[in-house]
């Protein structure tokens, strides 16, 4: 079964990618499976300077999901290029850098640095992280700001496929999606986490030091699926779907509503070899469904 996909210049041998922030720099999972099997590896969000992130507690479990407020702790782009990237099988599996910055200028600077790096196959711009007070979520919640960032990054890095990752915390996701498409995005990925909160009635404190955080995992899958479906209906560029995917069946649900590829996030925590198993299970399930190719299955949802 051919499960390869072409995301507007970014070719993947299969549609299973890791989601940023849930797969470390990829190397953390090398003991549990063959990284070369994956469609692509999306690494933890990178910023110009190293960031230490928010104080702990940063994560808490919720019904069928979790909240996180990591605050984009990362080693910084320099150290990533020096100490992480060389050890990833970039010639066998595309490595995608996820970018975080506090302003459009900083995004452009980051994009220029990573754009020069042959071992980075594409850039994913996180305009939707709700965990950083300045910057972050604002870009993803306003169509003008989202377009502005997209244009700046496009200009700074004209040669690599550009993925814009959208926030679900908006009134109409289609407006933002169209806006970034017009501004030059090659690919759209969604969803990032939903804003959420958890508290402890005994200590009377929030369960996250940051008070609020981002919700992910199976709990959000219905929200993600609807948004991916809606966005696929209004843009012409490929869409990467994510949000709560835990199984090959979940992955095919997103592809059936129109996604070209999917990312596995929170499910990586359920079992570190889960993502590798999904790569094997996907073609088996497709065959069971009597589908000849992934291509044929994509967008095949029949609505009344």
């Amino acid at each position, binding site marked *: 079964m051919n499960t390869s996909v072409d995301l507007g210049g970014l070719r993947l041998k299969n549609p299973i990618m890791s989601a940023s922030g849930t797969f470390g720099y990829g190397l953390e999972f090398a003991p549990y499976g063959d990284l070369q099997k994956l469609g692509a590896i999306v690494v933890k969000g990178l910023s110009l300077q190293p960031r230490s992130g928010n104080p702990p507690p940063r994560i808490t479990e919720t019904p069928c999901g979790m909240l996180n407020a*990591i605050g984009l702790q990362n080693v910084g782009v320099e150290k990533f290029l020096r100490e992480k990237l060389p050890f990833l099988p970039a010639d066998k599996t595309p490595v995608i850098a996820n970018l975080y910055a506090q302003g459009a200028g900083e995004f452009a600077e980051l994009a220029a640095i990573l754009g020069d790096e042959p071992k980075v196959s594409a850039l994913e711009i996180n305009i939707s992280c709700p965990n950083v007070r300045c910057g972050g979520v604002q870009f993803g919640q306003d169509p003008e700001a989202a377009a502005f960032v997209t244009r700046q990054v496009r200009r700074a890095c004209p040669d690599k496929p550009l993925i814009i990752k959208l926030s679900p915390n908006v009134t109409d996701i289609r407006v933002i999606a169209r806006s970034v498409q017009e501004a030059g995005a090659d690919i759209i990925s969604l969803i990032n986490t939903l804003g959420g909160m958890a508290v402890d009635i005994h200590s009377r404190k929030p369960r996250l030091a940051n008070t609020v955080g981002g919700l992910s995992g199976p709990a959000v899958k219905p929200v993600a699926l609807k948004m991916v479906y809606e966005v696929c209906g209004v843009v012409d560029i490929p869409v990467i779907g994510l949000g709560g995917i835990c199984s090959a069946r979940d992955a095919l649900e997103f592809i059936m509503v129109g996604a070209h590829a999917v990312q596995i996030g929170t499910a990586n925590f359920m079992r570190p070899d889960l993502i590798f198993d999904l790569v094997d299970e996907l073609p088996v399930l497709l065959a069971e469904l009597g589908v000849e190719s992934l291509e044929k299955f994509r967008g095949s949802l029949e609505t009344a």
Partner: protein
Amino acid sequence: MHNTCQTKSRFCDRVRLLGLDFAGHPDFVHLYLEPPSWDYTPGQFVMLRPEIWVQDPIWPRPFSICEKTPEYMRIFVQVVGRGTSLLSSAVPDSEINMWGPLGRGFRLSLDKRYLILAGGMGIAPFVGLCKEHPYPGKLSLIFGHRMDRSCYPFDELPGEMQRQSMRQTNQEDMEHFGRVLQEQIARFAFKGEILACGPMPFLQVVHKHVLETGAPAQLSVETRMACGVGACLGCVVETRSQGLVQSCVQGPVFDAGELVL
């Protein structure tokens, strides 16, 4: 082993639960699991997630490796919430995803003397350590506990060890225990090294006194963990030289001097 994923990974197994043994109290249970192929260092831990959990609870749960023999891997669990409660009612023969050995354990040298300070469930990582130690006479243990001593694997520790247990049921007991810890740390100080594991308030007391005396000590800390493999960045603790670091990778055992508690 019933089902192992060794071909695709070094460390993640789907192991069978061989049996459960309640220590005379429904909230304290020893899980006996099919032994994995790997070896471990005391202080290292595993992540457990029963197949039957499906999507809720979403996270695996971290547990110290209590003991490993050719017949079984043993995990000592106290029921404190949903996950541990589900584990304590797991059905023998059911399948549990287990990955490990995770993190850094205690650095040990056989010729050194050790003062082990364990609070409550903090005894877990020391069971294998003490039972497998060739010269248990070199080990002393001070064990503080809230529930009856019979709930914990204290009596099975080698008789050659110097063992002391103290129960704390109220604030006064706790304060007294704190003073005992202080004295014992001061008395032992540079005769060897201190190893400690237990709940945060206990560790904070130990930490304070080892820093005061300058006694060399390794502390095992517990933090909320989602992945256990260094990916989620949820389990960070503050260190002096490196800021916030993942305790699942750089810990759970740290040099006392490195930790900011």
